[in-house]
């Protein structure tokens, strides 16, 4: 399973089936600075991030799941929304805390799965008043509440999320509602797509975080399925809190 770097030059091949290839890819895509909020989007050409089933299943191909898996393993916390854990089975990552953002406190019908691995950790960021409802929905599954005021500014969400994190590297996997909260604090955006996503009016998809001019394309990859991977970083002047 190869990932081919197109930019920056020179071209490079990463064999993601090998430890060496994984290490080299992770070094290249290492989070900038001491903290980051990285988001990964799988899209189609219209910029849609989910299909009719409410998941990205039919949009996924090539090496995207492998890339996602590598980024998960190397993040301090993985962030998803209630819609994600309701729409498809989500095993708890073996070594990385999974943070579920829930503004409503309703996680009934979730499809979270546990292997019972020692490194599994489920954290729900929600208002403390939702504790009882959450406990009912998550019965039989160890979890912890991360108190979060959904009305607070985005910087407060980042501060809260950092409590789950040793070095501040967070990975946002998606969900429409989650993206509303996380877009303002995102510092790195990895888009996996065939072909480049374009909105028919503005030239960018509606979920694009902030002004396109705030973002710099740092690297571009492709794979054997001709998937394209665009890795953008937010410009220093546009970083949250800058």
């Amino acid at each position, binding site marked *: *399973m190869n990932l081919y770097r197109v930019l920056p030059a020179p071209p490079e091949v990463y064999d993601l089936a090998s430890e060496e290839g994984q290490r080299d890819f992770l070094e290249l895509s290492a989070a900038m600075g001491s903290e980051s909020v990285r988001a990964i989007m799988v899209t189609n050409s219209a910029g849609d991030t989910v299909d009719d*089933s409410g*998941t990205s*299943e*039919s949009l*996924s*191909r*090539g090496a995207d*799941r*492998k890339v*996602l*898996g590598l980024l998960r393993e190397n993040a301090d916390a993985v962030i998803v929304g209630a819609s994600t854990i309701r729409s*498809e*089975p989500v*095993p708890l990552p073996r070594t990385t805390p999974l943070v579920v953002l829930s503004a409503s406190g309703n996680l009934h019908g979730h*499809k979270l*799965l*546990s*292997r019972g691995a020692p490194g599994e950790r489920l954290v729900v960021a929600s208002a403390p008043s939702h504790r009882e409802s959450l406990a009912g929905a998550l019965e039989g599954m160890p979890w912890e509440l991360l108190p979060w005021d959904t009305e607070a500014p985005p910087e407060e969400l980042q501060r809260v999320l950092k409590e789950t994190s040793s070095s501040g590297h967070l990975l946002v996997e998606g969900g429409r509602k989650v993206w509303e909260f996380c877009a303002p604090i995102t510092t790195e955006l990895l888009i996996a797509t065939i072909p480049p996503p374009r909105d028919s009016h503005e030239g960018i998809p509606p979920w694009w975080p902030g002004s396109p001019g705030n973002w710099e394309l740092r690297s571009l990859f492709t794979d054997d399925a001709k998937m394209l991977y665009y890795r953008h970083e937010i410009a220093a002047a546009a970083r949250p809190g800058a």
Partner: protein
Amino acid sequence: MSESALPPSLAAIREDFLALSVQDRLQLLLEFSDTLPVVPEELVDPDAWERVEECQSPVFITVDTTPAEVMVYASAPEESPTTRGFASILVQGLHGMNPQQVLAVPPDFPLQLGLQNAVSMLRLRGMSGMLWRIKRQVDEGLAELAATK
């Protein structure tokens, strides 16, 4: 479909699923995902792997057919636990069965596991694709055996 159409191992797997709640069926699927048998390299010709095009994830299967026994092998990425779980069910349910038992598995077997409300039809169609390709390879294997007699 009749009960007798399923090989005993596949029938037992189905019963295990149906005895559980939907949430626990997903948990069982994850356990299957974690126990997909590793394929020893020396056992399989690298060129023999067939891509299961119905799956979004890169899933490959290959089958060795003898008159008495079918050996089923599959490869599926760990990052796709649902699809990998389906591959594992078919490998663990069909490996070692005789060709006639494999060919008799009804095409709607994936729908008999009670997972329709838990995973998408896209994923279930992926499992149907695996089953169809396994059976087609068994058919081809039997034809080759007949031709070499």
